[in-house]
C-alpha cells in the first residue's frame, strides 16, 4: 500500500477535512484530519483500507492545542499508519474511536486523564492510571513536576 | 522385653512410682496412694504422655523430612540453617507461631472459633492412641481399632466446617464448605478400600490385620484397593493434587484465612498429624505393618524395637511417595475433584471389594497363600 492509496480513499469522504498525508519514516504516513471528520476517517480506515488493529491512542500537549495521535496496523499491508488530529486547548473534545475499534477504550481513558482530551460518546470515561477523583492532568505542560500540588484541591471526593 | 506392651510398661512405671511414694509416706495415706485405681489412672496418663510425646516428635521429624525431600525434588537443599541440616527449623517455626498474637475477630463466634481448630488437633491426636505401631506398642484391649481410628479420622469435615463458619467471613464459609465436601466425597472410596482389606483379613482389628499379612502383604493381591486408598488419602489429607481448598487461601477464600498464631499452628499440625495417620494406615493395611517377609534373615528382625524400626522405615517411605506426588503434580479443580471422587473412585473401590471377595473364596485353593489359622483367633 502507498500513501496515495490512503489519500485516494479518504479524499472523497473527507474532502477539505483531510488536512494532509505527510510522509513519516517507518510508516505509511501521517494522516492529518479535522476532528469533525473523526468517525468517518476511522470507519474508512477500518472498512475500506483494512486497518483492523488500533495499536495506540496518545495525546500530546502543544500548549495552545493538543494533538491526538492514533496508530493503526494492517495485517494485509504489514504497515503502520499514523492518524493525527488537533484539538484546541480550550475545547479539547473529539469523537471516540471505541465504537470502531474496542481497543481504543483504555487508551482513550488514559489520554483523557493524562492530557485532558475528552472523547465524546466514550462508554466508560473514568480514571485508569491515576487515582479516582484526581483532579490534575499530569502530562499537560502546565503541570510542573517540581512544584507542589495544592493539597486542598488534590483529591476531590467522589 | 519381647512380651512387654506399652501399657504394661506404663503400668510398671506407675506402679513403681506410686509404691515408692506410698512406702515413703507410710501409714494409711501410703496405702491409699497404692490403690489399684490410682495406679491404673496414672498408668493411663503415662501411656498417653508417652504416646503424645512420641507422636509430636514423629510429626516434627516428618515435617523436616518433607521439607528436605521436597527441596531435593526442586533441586535445592531445604532448610539448612537452624540446627544441623535444619533439624531444629520446625521447632523454631512452632516457637514463632506460639509467640504470635492470635487475632480474634470481634464478630466471630468465640466458642466455635477456638473450638474448631482445637478439636481438629485433638481428634487427630486421639488416633495415635488407637493405632498399633508394633506388637508391643498398641492399645491392647481396644477391639475394632480400625473402625475406631477411621471414625475419629472422619470427624475432620465437621471441625473444618465449624472453624469456617465461626470465622464470620462468607468467603471462609464457602471455602470450608468446599473443603468439607471434598473430604466427605472421598470418605466413601476410602472406606470401601478398607472394606476390601477387612474382607481379606477377616477382622476390624489392626493387629489382626497385620498378623494376617505374615505370608503375603496385601499390596499384591489388593493393588486396586491400594491405589484407591492412596488417592483417597491424598484427598483426605488435602495435599496436592487435591489441595485446592488450601490454595483458596490465596484467593482469600480458604477456611483458615481468619486464623493466625497458635490456632493456625493447630491447623498445620493437624494436617501433618493426619498425613502421618494416612501413611501409618497404608503401612498397616497393605504393607504388613511391622513384620518383614519370611525370607529376610533373622538378624534384621531380632534387635530390640525392630518392629517399631521397620514400621517407621515403611511409613517414611510411604510418606516419601506422598511428597513425590506433591512435588510433581498440579492442582485439580474442585469440581473436577468431586467428579473424580464420585464417578471414578467409587466404581474402582467397588471393584476392589469384589476382587477381595473373590480372593477370599479362592484363597484356600492356591498354595502360595499358605494355610492360615482361622481369623479372630
Amino acid at each position, binding site marked *: 500500500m502507498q500513501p496515495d492509496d490512503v489519500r485516494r480513499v479518504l479524499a472523497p469522504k473527507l474532502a477539505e477535512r483531510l488536512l494532509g498525508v505527510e510522509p513519516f519514516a517507518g510508516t505509511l504516513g501521517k494522516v492529518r484530519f479535522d476532528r469533525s471528520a473523526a468517525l468517518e476517517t476511522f470507519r474508512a480506515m477500518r472498512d475500506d483500507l483494512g486497518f483492523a488493529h488500533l495499536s495506540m491512542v496518545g495525546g500530546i500537549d502543544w500548549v495552545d492545542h493538543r494533538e491526538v495521535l492514533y496508530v493503526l496496523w494492517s495485517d494485509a499491508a504489514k504497515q503502520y499508519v499514523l492518524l493525527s488530529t488537533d484539538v484546541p486547548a480550550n475545547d479539547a473534545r473529539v469523537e471516540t474511536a471505541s465504537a470502531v475499534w474496542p481497543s481504543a477504550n483504555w487508551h482513550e481513558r488514559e489520554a483523557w486523564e493524562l492530557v485532558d482530551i475528552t472523547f465524546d460518546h466514550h462508554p466508560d470515561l473514568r480514571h485508569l*492510571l491515576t487515582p479516582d477523583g484526581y483532579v490534575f492532568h499530569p*502530562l499537560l505542560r502546565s503541570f510542573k513536576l517540581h512544584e507542589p500540588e495544592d493539597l486542598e484541591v488534590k483529591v476531590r471526593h467522589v | 522385653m519381647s512380651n512387654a506392651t506399652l501399657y504394661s510398661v506404663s503400668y510398671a512405671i506407675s506402679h513403681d512410682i506410686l509404691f515408692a511414694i506410698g512406702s515413703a509416706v507410710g501409714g494409711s495415706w501410703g496405702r491409699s496412694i497404692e490403690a489399684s485405681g490410682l495406679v491404673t489412672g496414672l498408668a493411663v496418663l503415662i501411656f498417653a504422655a508417652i504416646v503424645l510425646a512420641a507422636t509430636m516428635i514423629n510429626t516434627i521429624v516428618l515435617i523436616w523430612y518433607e521439607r528436605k525431600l521436597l527441596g531435593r*525434588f526442586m533441586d535445592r537443599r531445604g532448610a539448612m540453617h537452624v540446627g544441623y541440616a535444619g533439624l531444629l527449623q520446625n521447632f523454631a517455626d512452632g516457637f514463632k507461631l506460639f509467640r504470635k498474637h492470635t487475632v480474634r475477630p470481634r464478630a466471630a463466634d468465640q466458642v466455635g472459633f477456638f473450638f474448631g481448630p482445637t478439636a481438629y488437633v485433638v481428634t487427630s491426636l486421639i488416633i495415635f492412641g488407637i493405632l498399633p505401631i508394633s506388637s508391643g506398642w498398641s492399645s491392647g484391649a481396644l477391639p475394632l481399632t480400625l473402625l475406631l481410628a477411621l471414625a475419629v479420622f472422619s470427624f475432620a469435615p465437621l471441625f473444618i466446617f465449624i472453624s469456617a463458619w465461626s470465622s464470620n467471613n462468607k468467603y471462609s464459609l464457602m471455602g470450608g464448605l468446599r473443603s468439607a465436601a471434598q473430604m466427605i466425597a472421598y470418605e466413601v472410596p476410602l472406606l470401601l478400600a478398607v472394606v476390601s482389606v477387612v474382607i481379606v483379613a477377616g477382622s476390624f482389628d489392626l493387629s489382626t490385620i497385620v498378623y494376617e499379612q505374615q505370608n503375603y502383604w496385601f499390596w499384591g493381591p489388593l493393588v486396586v484397593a491400594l491405589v484407591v486408598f492412596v488417592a483417597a488419602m491424598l484427598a483426605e489429607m488435602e495435599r496436592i493434587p487435591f489441595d485446592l481448598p488450601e490454595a483458596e487461601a490465596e484467593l482469600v477464600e480458604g477456611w483458615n484465612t481468619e486464623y493466625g498464631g497458635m490456632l493456625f499452628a493447630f491447623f498445620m499440625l493437624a494436617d501433618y498429624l493426619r498425613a502421618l495417620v494416612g501413611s501409618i494406615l497404608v503401612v498397616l493395611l497393605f504393607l504388613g505393618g511391622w513384620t518383614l517377609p519370611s525370607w529376610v534373615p533373622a538378624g534384621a528382625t531380632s534387635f530390640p524395637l525392630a518392629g517399631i524400626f521397620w514400621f517407621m522405615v515403611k511409613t517414611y517411605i510411604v510418606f516419601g511417595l506422598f511428597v513425590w506426588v506433591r512435588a510433581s503434580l498440579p492442582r485439580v479443580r474442585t469440581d473436577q475433584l468431586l467428579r473424580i471422587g464420585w464417578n471414578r473412585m467409587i466404581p474402582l473401590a467397588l471393584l476392589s471389594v469384589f476382587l477381595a471377595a473373590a480372593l477370599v473364596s479362592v484363597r484356600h485353593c492356591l498354595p502360595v497363600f499358605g494355610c492360615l489359622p482361622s481369623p479372630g483367633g
Partner: protein
Amino acid sequence: MSEMWINMGPQHPMTHGLWNLRVQIDGELVLAVDPEMGYLHRGIEKISEDRHYNEVITLMDRTCYVAGLAWEHLYLLAAEGALHVTPPERALYLRVLCEEFQRIGSHIMWYAAFVQDIGLMTPFLYGMRDRDLILDLFQSYTGARLTYEYMRVGGVRNDLPTGFTDHARKVLDWLIPRFKEYDQLCLGSTIFRKRCDGLGVLKGPEAIAHGVTGPMLRAAGVRRDLRKDRPYAVYDRLDFDMALADTADVTGRYLVRMEEMRQSVRILRQVLDWLDHHPGPVVAERLPRWLGAPYAPVGAEGYLLKRNYPKGVGFAAIEEPHGEALSYVVNEGGEHPYRVKFRSPVFANLSAASTYLVGYRVADIPPIMGSVDVCVGEVDR
C-alpha cells in the same frame, strides 16, 4: 448466592504485580470483569520530559522489569529516529542479543509463575534456576541482573567480555533439554491438560479488534510477529520461524511461548556466530555531548551543539516478549525529549479481559491470567 463483586488484589499472590482484578461472580461463575490498574503508575512519561535522552534509559529498565533490555531497545529506536543518529552494525547485533536473551528470560519467568499458580511447585524452581544462568550472562557484560542501563543513544555502552560467546553457547546448550523437561512436566500431565485446555478462549478477529498482540494473538492462529512483518535492528538477516498455535486457549499460549523460546535460541546462535567474526565499534561516532553528561558513551566525540541540532519525531515498534510495544518520541530541539509515549502490549491484552475471562469459573482465573503474562510495570508506567 447472589451476585457480588470481589477484589482479587491489589495484594494477591496470584496476580504477579500490583493491580486489582475485580470480578463479579455468581457462586463460581464469573459474570463480569473490571481490571483496576494504576497502582504502579510512576509517571515515567512525565519524568522523561525532564531528563536527558540517555537518562531516560534508566526509566525504561523499570518499565517492565522482567524485560528491561527490550524496553530500552524500544525507546532507543524511537529516540535515535528523533535525534537522527544511526548506531553501528555491531551495536544492532548486540541489541538483538540482549533482546532475545531477555525474551527467553521473560518467558521462563512467565512459565515459573504460571505453573506455580496451577499448583506445580517444582517447575517454578527449575525455571528460576535456569533463568539465573541468563541473569549471570547479563551480569557479565552489562554489570546488572535486573536494571541494566546497557544501551545508549547511538549504540550500547560497552562490548562483550572475552569468552562470552562460548559461555553463552554453553547456556543455550543447557537450556534446550530443559525446555523439553518443562514440556514433560506440563503437557505430559493429565491434570494440567484438564485444567488448561479450552480455557480463556480468545479467537483471532476478536483479539485483533481489542488490540491484543503477541503470544496471545499467535495462539489464536493469527500470523503476526513484528520481527518478521516489520523487521527492526537486524531481524531481517536472521533465520527463524514464527511460533503459532490454533487453539486460542491457555494451552495454545503455553505452546507458543515454549516455541518462541526455542526460536530465540536459534536466533541467538546466529547472532553469537556473527559477533564472533565481526569486531567493530559499538557506539556511533558523532554524538551530541548533551545527551546526558554522566552517561555519555565511552569514546563519544561530542562536538555537535545543542542550538544547531535538528528537530525530529521518532516512532518505533518492537516485538517485546509480551507482544507488540510502540514508542513515539518527539524531539523539539531541547536537551530533554518533548514527549515520550509508550504503548504496552499487556495494556491491550488486559483491556480485553472481559472477552476471555467471562463465563469461566473463579478457580479458572489463575491459569487464564497466568497465560496472559501480566507485567504491571509496563501497563502502568
